[in-house]
């Protein structure tokens, strides 16, 4: 098999020799599909609204939060009041402000780790299915091993190496271990379209393998990739919160997970400051729920059995 050699050009006009993005609009069809899927499903729409709410909090914390979250100037352990809608922490910080400021880190982790995990899932899953043979065997083996290992303990072990794991570490660790489920899904999907004639047609007309993977296969799987991303983001939110809760995150950072950590350290639930623990917990749950709800829109795509029977002209079946 000839490996795609980027150095080998066939003529003076070089750009076409590489995996050059096609001039035709792929984006138009795919993005429209995703938007349509999201807006048509009620649950997904609820998820979008929820996520947007948190995004606003994450982008404009300064404008929304009433106080500086780190300022330990208030009466410690106070219950909810007009000044402090959720009360104060054991250190005299306004819980609501902490919550609002904490949104940013939590969302960033979710999106970044989710994105990294999805990118890896796509790379591994699609390549394994398309390349086949030994490459597939090796990649699938790695995928299965990571899939089987209990992630949380593994993540703990790895994160423990880096005391006070900051944003970067968390994202890398979560991303590097959270791709296997998506990889399996994408591999299955790629296998099912691998024998489709348009891929064979692309190879027969002389496209390189890398081009085929990037520009012929991936565009047909945008919905599955988005669904995979939502799943990965959900996993990242919950796992990051968990890691921070047990103290592996950076305790000085502002996030829901660290709030939980400090709340636990001060026995918030028992000591009359329940909101300190409950509020961030609820936020973690809600953000996770946002991603999960949005995923409903894509269930139909990854599991065709759930699709309503649509009969459109030009569809394959003869009646």
């Amino acid at each position: 098999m000839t490996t795609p050699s980027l150095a080998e050009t066939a003529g003076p006009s070089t750009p076409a020799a590489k995996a050059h993005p096609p001039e035709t609009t792929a984006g138009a069809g795919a993005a429209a599909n995703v938007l349509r899927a999201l807006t048509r499903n009620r649950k997904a729409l609820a998820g979008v609204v929820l996520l947007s709410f948190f995004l606003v909090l994450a982008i404009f914390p300064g404008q929304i939060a009433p106080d500086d979250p780190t300022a330990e100037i208030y009466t410690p352990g106070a219950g909810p009041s007009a000044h402090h809608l959720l009360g104060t922490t054991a250190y005299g910080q306004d819980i609501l402000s902490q919550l609002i400021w904490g949104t940013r880190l939590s969302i960033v982790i979710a999106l970044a780790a989710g994105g990294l995990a999805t990118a890896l899932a796509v790379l591994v899953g699609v390549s394994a299915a398309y390349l086949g043979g030994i490459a597939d065997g090796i990649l699938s083996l790695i995928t299965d091993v990571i899939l089987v290992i209990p992630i949380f303990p593994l993540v703990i072990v790895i994160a423990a190496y880096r005391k006070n794991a900051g944003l970067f570490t968390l994202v890398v660790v979560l991303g590097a271990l959270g791709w296997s489920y998506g990889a399996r899904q994408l591999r299955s999907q790629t296998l099912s379209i691998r024998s489709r004639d348009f891929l064979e047609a692309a190879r027969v007309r002389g496209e390189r393998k890398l081009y085929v993977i990037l520009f012929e296969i991936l565009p047909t799987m945008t919905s599955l990739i988005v669904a995979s991303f939502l799943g990965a983001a959900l996993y990242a939110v919950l796992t990051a919160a968990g890691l921070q809760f047990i103290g592996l995150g950076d305790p000085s950072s502002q996030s829901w997970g660290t709030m939980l950590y400090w709340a636990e350290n001060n026995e918030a639930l028992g000591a009359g400051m329940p909101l300190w623990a409950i509020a961030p917990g609820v936020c973690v749950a809600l953000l996770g729920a946002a991603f999960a709800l949005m995923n409903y829109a894509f269930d139909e795509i990854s599991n065709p059995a759930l699709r309503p029977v649509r009969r459109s002209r030009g569809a394959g079946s003869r009646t």
Partner: protein
Amino acid sequence: MNAASERILEVRGLSVAYNSDGVPVVAVDDVDLELSSREFLAIVGESGCGKSTLLFAIAQLLSPPAEIVGGEVLFRGRNMVSLSRSELRSIRWRELSVVMQSAMNALNPVMTVATQMRDACKAHADMSDAEIEARSREVLRLVSIDPVHLHSYPHQLSGGMRQRAMIAMALLFTPDLVIMDEPTSALDVVAQRSLMVQIKQLQEQLGFAVIFVTHDMSLVSHFSDRLMVMYAGQVVELGATRNLFERPLHPYTRGLLEAFPSIHGPRVHLLGIAGSPPDLARPPAGCRFSPRCPEAEERCLASPPALLDTDGCLVRCLLYEQASARTPTTEARAGGAP
């Protein structure tokens, strides 16, 4: 038809619709059909004409979002639409059975032929294991499959054999009516031919009626008694097979016949039928075939033709309006235009 043959199936004004993104699509529009015992009726049409939907509706096998929205299906005088599931079950397979398109998909790949036949037997009758085994062997022999294959899995049988096994299963209770949806489409020409001959022989031997749905008119030309042509959910022609082949009335039927290049006779240039079937979500106002019809007139685009009786043959075409009488059923439902 002699007086002794009864009418075992009567379909009156059957309409099937389904909901596609909020828009109701009528896949089968006001279809009438009658079938006498031992009769072989072929239903012919292309993609989207509604023939498979019609078949499923008759067998009460439609699943949501498709549903019967009008008309009735009388099997031996009983309205199938109003029967309960248990009543239906007692009819199914014993008096009426179905052979699916492409046995590759219809046979369970993880069960042997014997197991599937036993399942069918147990589901519809009280038979002992010995009786089931004996009957299974018998039906396999009927379709020229060596009974040793009872213990084979579907993938061990060739395509033609699988299809014949499906037919054998359909004959377990020697039903009075067997409905077949393109049973030969996945087969090669030689296997197709021998299967058709076999079906015809079985029909004559066991005396069941057949409704045979296909897109290939020439396939049934020598086997069916009557032929029904469907287009865009409607019946456009119905009559004795020989008549349709020798003197096709509807322009669509003519177009279809001419779309088959022949291996005998002179080599002529054929034209096929230009265009495509209409979108059933927005059917044309007049005759549904008029946009593609080489003989269309102004009025064809405006007024939808009714099914007219022209000397024993039913045609849905304005060209025959003068030379015909309106059929009694269309008269009775004159108020509701198709």
